[in-house]
């Protein structure tokens, strides 16, 4: 009896051992593993982490602010800060300063420090990206989901709405809206939020269309028929069965769109209809290039913000693409 028990425990211990060593990966872990195997995606994550640290943590360690003007005493060549009011009388604005220890990337046409504006401009660009994507996803996923799930008349109406929104050319539309906002005498700091919201409202159509297509094909799946047959509540069907299956698509689309929105915002700011002075945005920093002298001799003013846009958008695209491959192993790159 005693002996048999030990054999049993030994046996049990062996099974435990086996189970302990056996690695069971959840689907989430599988996705993570596939994602981190993709070199481009990892590079993308690194760039994004760097950019976020640079834009949000960088200003804490950098002595100058976004809107601080720098002055210089022409005779002595002494640099004067804005608060040294006594010395300001004999000083002129320190514009287009070369790269130096005080100003790593020099100062721009107005006498602002380029590196400081690069950080604050990045905050704005990233924030615009996130807010617009959240707004467009909220509207797009809801309406696209409703259209795909219920079909019929509702689908018909929502899809026509989608077509209307997709058919309006974006840049002329934003020009018009921007002049509307200016006329309403909205201060530049609040205007940014209006612009974000409006962009989200315009961009939802593309999302809705994709989600609808996805829901339509999911509805035909066997497990949805099973759910139907089991007679579970509609809300449960949507939130337990449909939403988790649409999630990968939503995540991939949101990541890719983040890049697209940042690109769009920078284009708008370049044209002067997005984020406006005195606030910095990568797009309106590049617009200094329209001045021939700056284009030719002051690369330190317009090249860094352009590179920042390129790197950030590139990183979002790398990550989005990596996520898509990781979520969908059938469609390997």
């Amino acid at each position, binding site marked *: 009896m005693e002996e048999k028990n030990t054999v049993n425990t030994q046996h049990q211990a062996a099974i435990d051992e086996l189970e302990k060593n056996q690695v069971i990966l959840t689907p989430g872990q599988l996705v993570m593993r596939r994602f981190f195997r993709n070199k*481009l995606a990892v590079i993308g994550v690194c760039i994004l982490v760097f950019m976020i640290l640079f834009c949000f943590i960088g200003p804490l360690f950098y002595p100058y602010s976004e809107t601080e003007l720098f002055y210089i005493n022409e005779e002595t060549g002494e640099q004067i800060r804005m608060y040294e009011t006594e010395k300001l009388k004999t000083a002129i604005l320190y514009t287009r300063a070369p790269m130096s220890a005080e100003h790593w990337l020099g100062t721009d046409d107005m006498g602002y420090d380029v590196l400081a504006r690069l950080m604050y401009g990045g905050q704005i660009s990233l924030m615009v990206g996130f807010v617009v994507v959240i707004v467009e996803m909220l509207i797009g996923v809801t309406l696209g989901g409703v259209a795909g799930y219920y079909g019929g008349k509702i689908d018909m109406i929502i899809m*026509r*709405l989608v*077509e*209307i929104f*997709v*058919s*309006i*050319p*974006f*840049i*002329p*539309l934003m*020009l*018009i*809206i921007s*002049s*509307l906002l*200016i*006329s*309403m005498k909205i201060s530049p700091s609040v205007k940014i939020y209006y612009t974000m919201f409006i962009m989200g409202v315009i961009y939802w159509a593309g999302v809705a269309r994709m989600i609808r297509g996805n829901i339509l094909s999911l509805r035909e799946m066997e497990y949805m028929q099973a759910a139907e047959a089991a007679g579970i509540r509609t809300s449960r069907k949507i939130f337990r069965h449909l939403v988790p299956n649409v999630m990968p698509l939503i995540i991939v689309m949101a990541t890719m769109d983040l*890049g697209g929105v940042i*690109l769009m915002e*920078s*284009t708008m700011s*370049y*044209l002067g209809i997005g984020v406006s002075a005195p606030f910095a945005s990568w*797009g309106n920093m*590049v*617009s200094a*290039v329209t001045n*021939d002298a700056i*284009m*030719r001799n002051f*690369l330190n003013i*317009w090249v860094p913000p*352009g590179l920042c*846009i*390129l790197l950030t*958008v*590139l990183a979002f*695209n*790398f990550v989005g*693409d990596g996520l898509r491959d990781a979520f969908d192993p059938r*469609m390997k*790159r």
Partner: protein
Amino acid sequence: MRQYIIRRILISLIVLLGVSIMLYTLIRLMPSDYVDMSTSSSINMTDEMRENIRALYGLDKGIVEGYIDWLGGIFRGDLGMSLMFRRPVVEVIGQYAPVTFTVAFIALVFQVLIAIPLGILAAKKQYSMTDYTIVTLVFIGISLPIFFFAAILKRIFGFYGLNLLPISGMLTARVNYDGFTFAKFLDYAKHLILPITCFVITGCGGLLRYTRTNMLEVLNADYIRTARAKGVPERTVIYSHAFRNTLIPIITIVGSTLPSLFSGAAITEGLFALEGLGNIALRASYMADVPYLMGFNMFIAVLTVAGFLISDILYAAADPRVRLS
């Protein structure tokens, strides 16, 4: 099928109606109208005179009334008079469209010529160094802000850099050409190199990736394996078996990029000072030239909607189930 097409066309018309209502309302909501803009510098103008001009231009009417007038004009084939040019909108569009069309068309041809062969190459050599290089370059192209890329091109090739290419305008100033000679053509071509490069590099990424993904999908299909097993040469497998089957979705995509080329023209033409529809639309937006803005934006909207319509009808022709729903 006929019934489906008719229904689809009717729906498209409703969509266009919706677009035009939204656009008209927004444009008319703009705070200062054309009369304010164009007379703001003359001191002698009284408000009374401004009102008279407004009445002359039809800007004194309310939004609803103005829209109905505009819509009525459409049915008579009349897009109204452009306020900036003092000429019919149709005429203005007719004058500036050739530039935009030429640039868009050449850019599209180059995009296709670059994207499709490279996409096939990348798919053929999946996971190779070539593949990774192409994919990375494509991503960079997609992520490039067009205004930044244009600035770099101008700096490198323009007057301040290598001084190889002109950076703005369509023709060299101070040069007169008699008639349309080869020299004039060459001058045009030189001016268009940079804008078209901009379009092609930033635009061909989407098409290339699409070709590559589709090609990969087809190359995994059973009939490709069969063809290879039967000993069909690899060239024939790729170009006649596989590529033919990716062609249909590619054509759909190429068709749908056309409207985006036109709306993208608003920025690129502005950057390179080309006298095209987009550049004028940009100016018209600042001047609140209602008839021209409506004409240009509706032109793009019609292109977009027509794109949807054609692809929907093609799908319906290919898949009978679509027609029923």
